[in-house]
């Protein structure tokens, strides 16, 4: 099971609050005299809350804007509009110096362990860099070297390999280095951007277990970004399904997987392989027609209507808002209707 704790956080008790987050990228043309000829709407009005110690998963296919949300959260990109409130402080109101300080609270684990570590630096320089940038984060009475060795030990790396280079490690070990780096500042929130999708399936489980152990030990909150529902269901307390920059459906992991209401979520879940081969062979899969529309020219109304098997005239005309379908479980659909048992029932793993 994903969690036994109350699934929906009180808004006041949230460590991370995101409201109406929008990110547009201008499309420029011209070499000397650049002219804006359009906008790519990567993220369009995303809101959610994250309670301390909880994990919220952002799920969706490539290009749905989930990674952009992650980068907006850690301040790698500036939002076009909307707010990111970390532990009661709106990032947009901070001076550069205050923002630097605030970064200690929210860190990111990047997807690709092969490109996210500087190949010219030793492991001890990589994991020690956070302490050079934030000397105050170095634990009391520890040298940088000791602190790095302890972090390595904590993420399951042999601390004897302090002076090795990234290319001398395997993919899973390299991702552990990335996790140690994100952990060094003792953040309250970690944004994990597809942390296991570049790894072998056998290694994925080990890294997922490590992430869950660390969450429990340090009281971390995760924003877990993934395209893979079967990975997400292991760790998430809540799931937000994204499509073309918008949240299609948001709810507790158990509810959302057991009773998806949005047709896109239903299609997504019906694609998750089931462990039972007989059930897998006989079940009905929802296949979506067409390709993901370009975010430079998103469909009017419901952004999903061009591929939706339930689409009616209203879907092309009117944008559906997130409406409760079952308590805190919300879906942005004009015709929400639960489907049951698409991904092998509500029980995870």
């Amino acid at each position, binding site marked *: 099971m994903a969690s036994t704790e109350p699934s929906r956080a009180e808004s006041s008790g949230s460590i991370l609050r995101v409201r109406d987050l929008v990110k547009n990228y201008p499309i420029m043309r011209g070499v000397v005299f650049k002219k804006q000829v359009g906008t790519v709407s990567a993220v369009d009005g995303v809101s959610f809350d994250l309670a301390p110690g909880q994990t919220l998963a952002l799920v969706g296919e490539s290009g749905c804007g989930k990674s952009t949300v992650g980068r907006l959260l850690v301040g790698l990109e500036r939002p076009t509009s909307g707010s990111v409130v970390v532990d009661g402080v709106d990032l947009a109101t901070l001076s550069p110096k205050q923002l630097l300080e605030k970064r200690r609270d929210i860190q990111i684990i990047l997807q690709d362990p092969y*490109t*996210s570590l*500087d190949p*010219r630096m030793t492991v001890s320089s990589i994991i020690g860099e956070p302490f050079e940038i934030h000397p105050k984060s170095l634990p009391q009475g520890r040298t940088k070297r*000791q602190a790095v060795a*302890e972090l390595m030990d904590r993420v399951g790396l042999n*601390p004897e390999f302090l002076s*090795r280079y990234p290319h001398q490690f395997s993919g899973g070990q390299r991702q552990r280095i990335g996790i140690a780096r994100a952990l060094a500042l003792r953040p309250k929130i970690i944004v994990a951007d597809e942390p296991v999708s570049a790894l072998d399936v056998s290694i994925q489980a080990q890294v997922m277990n490590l992430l869950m152990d660390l969450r429990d030990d*340090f009281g971390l909150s995760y924003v877990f970004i993934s395209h893979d529902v079967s990975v997400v269901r292991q760790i998430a307390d809540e799931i937000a399904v994204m499509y073309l920059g918008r949240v299609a459906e948001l709810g507790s992991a158990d509810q959302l997987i057991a009773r998806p209401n949005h047709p896109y979520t239903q299609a997504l879940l019906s694609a998750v392989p089931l462990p039972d081969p007989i059930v897998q062979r006989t079940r009905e899969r929802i296949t979506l027609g067409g390709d993901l529309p370009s975010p430079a020219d998103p469909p009017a109304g419901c952004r999903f209507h061009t591929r939706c098997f339930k689409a009616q005239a209203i879907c092309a005309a009117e944008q559906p808002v997130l409406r409760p379908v079952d308590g805190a479980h919300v879906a942005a659909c004009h015709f929400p209707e639960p489907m049951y048992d698409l991904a092998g029932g509500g029980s995870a793993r």
Partner: protein
Amino acid sequence: MSESLSRPAPAVEAALEGGDTSAPRSQLGDAWHDLRHSALFWVSAVIIGAVLAIAAFPNAFADAAKTSALTGGCDFADFLQSPSEAHWFGTDQLGCDIYSFTIFGARPSIAVGLIAALLTTVLGTVVGVISGYYGGIVDSLLSRLVDIFFGLPLLLGGIVILSALTFPSIWGVVFVLVILGWVSAARLVRGTTIEAKNQDFVLAARALGATNSRIMWRHVLPNAVGPSIVVAVISLGGYIGAEATFSYLGLGLKDPDFSWGTMIAAAQSSFFQAPWTLLFPAGFLTVTVLAVILMGEAVRDGLDPKSRA
């Protein structure tokens, strides 16, 4: 929060005391591992080592007194003698010992090449990293500047500058080579910088709150500078040759300074009577340039195994 980070585990203590016993290798270490087995590398290394020794300690190889008529080094009676026991490389029109001149001529030739290669690489790297890292208007301005200098032909530009201005000893040639040579390093480093700055590890550093200068010098530069070091070694050979060219044209070193280039210039009137006046300085020059270029190629192969044919 748990206590996990406040207790040093036994494994941690052991590691901090014992350290890693297996040999970790950096990328330079890997390059060295490959270079050790390269015959090309060893041949050029021995030649370069010998030339550097001659340039650094010419007094160990020849007598400085023999390189000046003022100190009795040249005897007009001995002019244009062929190589002999007294004069290993023969003598020139003034009866000077060519061996001594060749040995003492190494230092200015090598010095010009080394200083020019160092300065072009440093200047080109700084401009290239700034241009590639910041992009936008900074990049546009610096790139146009690079284009302007790239349009100046080395030989013509050098002749114009050296005819118009006078510099003490080797500095005129160094100035010309740096002014006209830094642009190729800048272009190269700009490209590798753009490649490096888009890597995820730069994103990771930025998420930690690293400043631009930290990212540029700690992360981007070390990953962008490799190819320009190879080019610096190869261009060192070119600069030694260029110094000889300018000196041959009478625009480089001026009397009483001399180098292999000025010796080749002086030999042109006596070449048919006494070929050794040309062959020895020209031979040293050619072998040195060749060794440097071969070294550059060996180092490139070592640093980047993908470039191997």
